[in-house]
């Protein structure tokens, strides 16, 4: 049957049959297309594996010979003075972009596993082969995934990135790119690592803050500034909150004035963070202010005030904490007050005996819970 005959039959067929045939053709086409894509992808993966299999012995031998069997690495700490023979990595198989990318990947893996003079030699190899240019090219790509790859490569190899390239990325609308750029900036910029706080307009999400906090607190080379500046003047609320957390972590009592000023902020979340910080820094001179502002605060701030009083441990707010524990309507308030009483060592055997006579069963339960040493305050 010829095509024209088939079309003629199709036109004469009932509408339902026409729809069914159209649907079948569409499904077969889409499925075939999907299988074709899968095949292409598998073929590319196969080619990549073959390429990697071919290059891996050359890369491994060269790198290991230059690093671990290089007799000069033990005599000198000056990396630039160590003779390196990486001619083979500059030749034919490594001129193509795909093969250079494999080489970058291997260098990164080695760099993650080695430090000291060998780590510096890996960086030198990376630079001498102009692989940093490949990574910098990725930063100019329109694809955010390429930009993140470029950032990771440069960060792993400890190659600094000019501010003009990286600072705009720290404020990208793309969350992953923003997070990667901020992490990279902190890792690579030793002296002005926090400069991007000045340009941040996008919010720092909780997960971003956790990751940045980890990088900052685990870095041994980072110069830690006084965070009071950003606490006082940053227009970005999340930057202020993050800087408060950092100031508490580094016990920056010099940032106390900036934190205390936030007690007058209209934003109750900022006030809560400031109160939390005051407790953590044990600023007992602010205790009276916390007590005086307590009645006018929303629940979140009241709970933070109770916690802060417990951390300050001055003993002056014992009566206040007892009153809140015994008579507050809100369960969370009573719990926070009980925890602070226990924390500030206001609970003695006599106190417990007195409480048993007057507290409700629920309050006794709260108190016993707070006195459990496994409960961390």
């Amino acid at each position: 049957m010829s095509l024209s005959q088939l079309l003629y039959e199709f036109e004469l067929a009932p509408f339902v049959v026409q729809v069914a045939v159209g649907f079948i053709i569409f499904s077969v086409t889409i499925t075939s297309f999907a299988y074709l894509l899968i095949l292409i992808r598998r073929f590319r993966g196969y080619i990549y594996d073959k390429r990697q299999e071919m290059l891996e012995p050359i890369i491994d031998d060269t790198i290991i010979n230059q690093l671990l069997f290089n007799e000069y690495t033990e005599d000198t700490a000056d990396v630039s003075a160590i003779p390196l023979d990486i001619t083979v990595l500059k030749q034919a198989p490594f001129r193509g972009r795909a093969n250079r990318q494999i080489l970058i990947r291997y260098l990164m893996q080695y760099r993650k596993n080695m430090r000291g003079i060998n780590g510096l030699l890996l960086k030198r190899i990376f630079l001498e082969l102009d692989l940093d240019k490949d990574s910098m090219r990725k930063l100019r790509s329109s694809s955010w995934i390429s930009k993140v790859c470029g950032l990771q490569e440069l960060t792993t190899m400890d190659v600094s990135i000019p501010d003009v390239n990286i600072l705009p990325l720290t404020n990208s609308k793309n969350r992953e790119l923003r997070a990667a750029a901020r992490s990279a900036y902190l890792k690579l910029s030793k002296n002005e690592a926090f400069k991007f706080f000045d340009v941040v307009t996008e919010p720092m999400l909780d997960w971003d803050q956790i990751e940045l906090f980890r990088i900052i607190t685990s870095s041994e080379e980072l110069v830690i500034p006084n965070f009071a500046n950003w606490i006082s003047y940053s227009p970005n609320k999340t930057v202020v909150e993050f800087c408060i957390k950092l100031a508490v972590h580094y016990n920056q009592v010099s940032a106390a004035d900036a934190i205390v000023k936030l007690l007058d902020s209209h934003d109750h979340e900022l006030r809560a963070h400031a109160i939390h910080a005051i407790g953590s820094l044990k600023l007992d001179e602010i205790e009276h202010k916390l007590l005086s502002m307590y009645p006018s605060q929303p629940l979140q701030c009241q709970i933070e005030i109770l916690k802060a009083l417990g951390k300050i441990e001055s003993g002056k707010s014992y009566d206040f904490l007892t009153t809140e524990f015994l008579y507050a309507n809100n369960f969370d308030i009573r719990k926070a007050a009980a925890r602070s009483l226990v924390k500030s060592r206001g609970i003695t055997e006599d106190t417990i005996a007195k409480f048993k006579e007057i507290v409700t069963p629920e309050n006794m339960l709260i108190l016993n819970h707070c006195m459990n040493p496994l409960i961390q305050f």
Partner: protein
Amino acid sequence: MKSILIVEDDALMLKIILKILSKENYEIDTAVNGKEAFEKLEARNYNYDLVITDIMMPYSNGFEIISKLKQHGTGRVPVIMVSNVNHENIVMEVFKAGADDYIKKPVMAGELLIRVKKLIN
């Protein structure tokens, strides 16, 4: 000839440690997970001069390997733990478990060699 068992699931890290230690004249066995390590230990009747092990691995972790060595009880096999975990609690746990040394990844070749020589001799 002194014998060393290296237990490491990261292929590149294993290669690096092997190359570092190949500078010295050691007899080296390798295992890529805890299960294989136990098999190698039993095959040699725990008769190694040193064990270098990662902490986090499939099947059994480094702490279980140390525990196994202690249970066996015949002689004292020194253990070096190698890991990229830098939390101070982990470091304390490593020494509490009975390890003789701890090296944080990324490793320095010279440092690893010195620590191995110190324990094995």
